[in-house]
């Protein structure tokens, strides 16, 4: 299962990279979103999946799944959400100020 998951993550990351290399600002943001999904899954997978029950003492019996990566991912999800929200508004503002979402068009005055 882990091997299969890693292959899946590889595909996700390849797609995310391709999106990030696009010259369209929106696609870059979509790419970062996909990238963060891939990384979250990767953290979970590396720790090993389905090795036990849900990590709740009263609800389930030992053995439990590793809880530490879950805590890390929870932090990561929130942070990537904050960053995505910020970048989205930034893209929105960029488009309003410059009238373009083409990254090749967004350069310093020197190159124009």
């Amino acid at each position: 299962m882990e091997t299969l998951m890693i292959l899946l993550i590889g595909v996700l990351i390849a797609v995310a990279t391709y999106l990030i290399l696009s010259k369209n600002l929106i696609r870059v943001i979509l790419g970062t979103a996909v990238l963060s999904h891939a990384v979250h899954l990767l953290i979970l997978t590396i720790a090993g999946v389905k090795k036990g029950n849900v990590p709740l003492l009263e609800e389930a019996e030992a053995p439990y799944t590793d809880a530490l990566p879950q805590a890390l991912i929870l932090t990561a999800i929130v942070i990537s959400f904050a960053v995505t929200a910020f970048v989205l508004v930034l893209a929105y503002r960029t488009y309003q100020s410059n009238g373009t979402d083409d990254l090749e068009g967004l350069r310093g005055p020197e190159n124009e």
Partner: protein
Amino acid sequence: MVQVLFIFIPIIAAIFIPVLFKKVRGIHTGWFVLIVPVVLAAIYASYISRVMHGETIVSKVNWVPSLDISFISYIDGLSLLFSLLITGIGALVVLYSIFYLDRTREQLHNFYVYLLMFMSAMLGVVQSDHLISLYLFWELTSISSFLLIGYWYDRDRSRFGALKSMMITIFGGLMMLGGFILLSIMGETYSIRELIAQAPTLVSHDWFTLSLVLILLGAFTKSAQFPFYIWLPDAMEAPTPVSAYLHSATMVKAGIYLVARLTPIYASSEIWVWLVMGVGLFTLFWGSFFAVKQTDLKGILAFSTVSQLGLIMSLLGAGAVAFHVDQAQDTVFKFAAFAAIFHLINHATFKGSLFMIAGIVDHETGTRDIRKLGGLMSLMPISFTVAAIGSFSMAGVPPFNGFLSKEMFLTSMLAIKDFNLFAMDTWGTIFPIVAWIASVFTFVYSFYFVFKTFTGKYKPELLPKKAHEAPIGMLISPIILAALVVIIFFIPNIIGDVFVKPAVLAIQPFLYDSASAIPIHVSAWHGFNTELFMTIGIFIVGFLLFLTIPKWQKLYKIAPDWLSLNRLYDRFMTFLDKDLNFISKLYMTGSIRNYLVYMFSFIVVITISTLFVKDAFSFSMEGTAPIHVYEIILILVLIISTITVLLSKSRLTAIIALGAVGYTVALFFVIFNAPDLALTQLVIETVSVALFLLAFYHLPKLSRHEERIRFRLNNFIISLGVGVMVTLVALSAQSQKLVPSITEYYKETVNTLAGGGNIVNVILVDYRGFDTLFEITVLSIAGMAILGMIKLRLSRKENEHENK
């Protein structure tokens, strides 16, 4: 203690110069300045008798004791001679500048501050026994020389000359610093005296040759040796007193001093002998040959300085040969070091006076162009006399001091011929021949300088000013120097005993016990020998060449440009400035995509190659969980929705597909037994999609025509590479786990220590609560930033309106 402070007297005096210049407008500031070199010269003169008897005067002031860095003033024959030159000629130059520079029109406070700064620096160079403080003063001479060359900073040529000399001498200075550091590591001391004492053990060290070459680079750049002489002719844009002082008598001799000072350490190396002598001789020839091409009086003198410095350098190289022969006292090489120092004194006297005359001619006629000058002999008789004395001495004509040093030079070069060590017996014949040809050209340009200026036809229509004799104040200094030129000829042995022999003792300390033991007696007449016939040959051929100058001067036009090193320097500077800029613009395109391509490619290449070079890749399926059908379905859903994000034409499809990706990830969290993650992921994904929809409503369409993403092969290869890289690293990491997880501890203590049942939540708020604290901070900062971006828009727009 006290002697070290003497070095700083000029720089301390410099502090008061601007005040005196501003407050005492009636008196030329130079008169106040004059006190400093005169007093210092008197002080140094009082050491003469002590140093003559072999005494050395050492004093020390600690600077950085913990790093063993200090100012050490070490006065022996060599440094005393230089100190006297610096202060003595300094006094004459200051006196000359009082009449040369106008009190009302020139910014005298700048001039004298720079000049005094230079004087301190130069005294520091020649007296320092500590390598690091020597370097400090060395660079201070470069800086003050830069300031003095650019004194008339509103002229383009001045700024160009200042920059050029700065670039070249600082380059050499930095190389020299490298050499010094190597030297101090080899000898484990910074003190030159202690290094000389352990010279025999240094030779076998690995870094010996490297430090030798680096230090010689410093000496050659400073002393304007081939090919670094090119800054000196351009430095002639400085006021003439500066040219006379810095660029003929003192600063350019700093390299000579360094070579002389370090001779006891390095002379036992063949490379040293060859480099110093070879470069010196070639510079001698090159400088003398190209001096005749110049049309500017100061240009002639600049090339002549280059050439004479080459002569002194080659003599020092020949003096180093004495370290290679047994019974050096009986050989003729003992002459070389003596001749070098003797000529150094002579050169300082006659070149100083010649520069001052060139300045007088410029001052009184308004031009230095030799083609416009002529027939000034009757108008400026005193200047002519001084110029003639200086030039004849430079040409090596008796009864002037240049004759004596030229004879000794020829003797040394003839001696090289008979010296059969490291292949000199086969090549040695070249040395006297080159020396002879160079002397012929020296003769030619000396006559060219004096006779083209002062004889011939007077051309008043070409001169900006009506020519007349200079004021007496301006003439005092050159007259004193010219008088010295003659006096030294008649009393060479007094000069030799008092100044030269103690200096030679410092250069060749292993050969003699004391200065008086040096068995050299200079005589103007030494019988009919080879040197005399060579000199007669020089006079005859030189005179014939001088008469026919107009006929063969065209030679210079055959290959003038590509032979010139200036062209190479200019090309190099353009390369640094424009071409390198062009090259960096080739890859610094300003496009984020390009930079991302660089980053991704390097990460992929470095990671994958490390993985295989270190043989770190491994793959095993051991201990993995079983696969169920619904999981495969989820994986397919995830892949399909991701591809949809990639390929969708419209942004709405892309957002919805991205939402599908997020929800599928949440489902994965469910089957991987992570309920908190699944919960958070569902909520966050919902909010994100809402946010995306909100923002995208205002954003443009994916592109103007809602195109699909364009296929680009290199992007595809790079993203494939990144995907493969992550997969390989993850597989390796998954297949080889070295230590067990620390979660066992959390599991066991979550109830007893933290009193909770949800391990994930307890980790978040109890075990690792700091993560959560700052994650909250991140969220609030993002919120404030978003608010700021939306609010600030309004105020900025208002500002834009105001600006318009």
